[in-house]
């Protein structure tokens, strides 16, 4: 299965960072009936490491702690890619405006003063979780293709930039496959647009199923798809693509039993560092796809970028 956009809703974890044992005991009793799992940290340092490790949905943070205080924790939180997205509610006995303003400036989403009112605390926690669930959904939606549930073109551009920069830095293998459904226009014209949409959806599902955990499947546009295959040399990418093609070929189609759906596939990849710009890499996969179309469709063509570099070096 490919990495697909995360849509499952799980019970959120709440991390409480406070040096007072009483606060932990009270919160555990008071939040027992909330849809929450509680984790406790008793120092700022412990709070940071537990946040990185457990990726809580929300943090309740005390300010006045010995050693690393809450302001410092907030600063580190927002400086760290692993924790910057986690909402933090400050829960503190400091009640002056300057403390509140500083906390919000440092990225806190809310501020509750001690001693806290239990009902108010509960609704503020619920509200922060809800807002952040919606923000996450929006961010995800902006990266999902509506028809197939795969990542969309924009998500591809971002993932591809990351994948190619990893290849450039660490020389880890990387392959890119481009897929185009064969005779799609005629399928649409003959059997109607619902049949075309159905072919696109079923192909998307096949692509997700036949690719691997770390692969990233995207709808590139229309009846075109791409699959980013990290840590994958061209010959292994070829086997993945052959499997996708064979699986699609074997399907039967209730709305047009007499006609199968096939796909042409172009792969461009390398087992080493590719001295090529990301956009040119995509163009190479496109050329391989064109070759697969020209060679009779329902097939995979592979361009090994390393071999090409060697050929170019020899020619030069």
């Amino acid at each position, binding site marked *: 299965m490919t990495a697909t956009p995360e849509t499952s809703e799980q019970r959120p974890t709440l991390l409480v960072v406070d040096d007072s044992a*009483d606060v932990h005991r009270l919160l555990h009793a008071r939040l*027992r009936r909330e849809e929450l799992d509680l984790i406790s940290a008793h120092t700022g340092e412990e709070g940071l490491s537990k946040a990185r490790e457990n990726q809580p949905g929300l943090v309740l943070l005390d300010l006045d702690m010995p050693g690393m205080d809450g302001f410092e924790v907030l600063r580190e939180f927002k400086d760290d890619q692993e924790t910057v997205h986690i909402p933090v509610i400050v829960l503190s006995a400091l009640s002056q405006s300057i403390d509140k303003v500083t906390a919000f400036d440092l990225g806190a989403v809310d501020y509750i003063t001690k*001693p806290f009112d239990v009902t108010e605390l509960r609704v503020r926690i619920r509200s922060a979780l809800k807002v952040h669930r919606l923000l996450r959904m929006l961010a995800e939606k902006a990266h999902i293709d509506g028809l197939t549930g795969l990542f969309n073109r924009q998500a591809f551009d971002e993932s591809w930039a990351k994948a190619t920069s990893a290849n450039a830095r660490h020389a880890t293998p990387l392959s890119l496959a481009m897929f185009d459904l064969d005779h799609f226009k005629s399928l649409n014209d003959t059997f109607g647009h619902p049949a075309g949409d159905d072919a696109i959806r079923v192909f998307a599902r096949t692509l997700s199923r036949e690719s691997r955990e770390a692969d990233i499947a995207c709808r590139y546009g229309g009846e075109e798809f791409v699959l980013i295959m990290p840590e994958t040399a061209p010959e292994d990418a070829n086997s993945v693509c052959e499997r996708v093609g064979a699986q699609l070929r074997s399907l039967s189609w209730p709305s047009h039993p007499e006609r199968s759906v096939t796909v042409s596939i172009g792969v461009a990849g390398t087992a080493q560092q590719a001295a090529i710009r990301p956009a040119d890499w995509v163009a190479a996969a496109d050329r391989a796809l064109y070759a697969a179309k020209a060679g009779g469709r329902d097939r995979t063509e592979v361009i090994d970028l390393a071999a090409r570099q060697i050929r170019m070096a020899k020619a030069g």
Partner: protein
Amino acid sequence: MTASEPNNLILSDFADDPDMVEIIEEFVGEIPERIAALQAAFDSDDTHAVASLAHQLKGSGGGYGFNQVSEAAGRLENAARSPSQHDLETIRVELNRLVSFCSRLAVR
């Protein structure tokens, strides 16, 4: 019952809350220990420790439904934070008042 009648017990505001009963018991059970620590700090003239221990009680008392403990602890903290020597007597008065409240806390 009111706080002014020394022989009466002080019940937590949350004594009827099933989520709270267990931790109120724990809190009340730990009170003698906390009072002993306060008394020891006062006896060794460590007003800083008195203030800090009182601060903790102020912060938690209300949470367990004992607002009178929070208030008394708050007054003790203020007295202990005052730097003047003649306030030792004030500290003693506030400490005794807090001890008297704490000795009357009851779970049910």
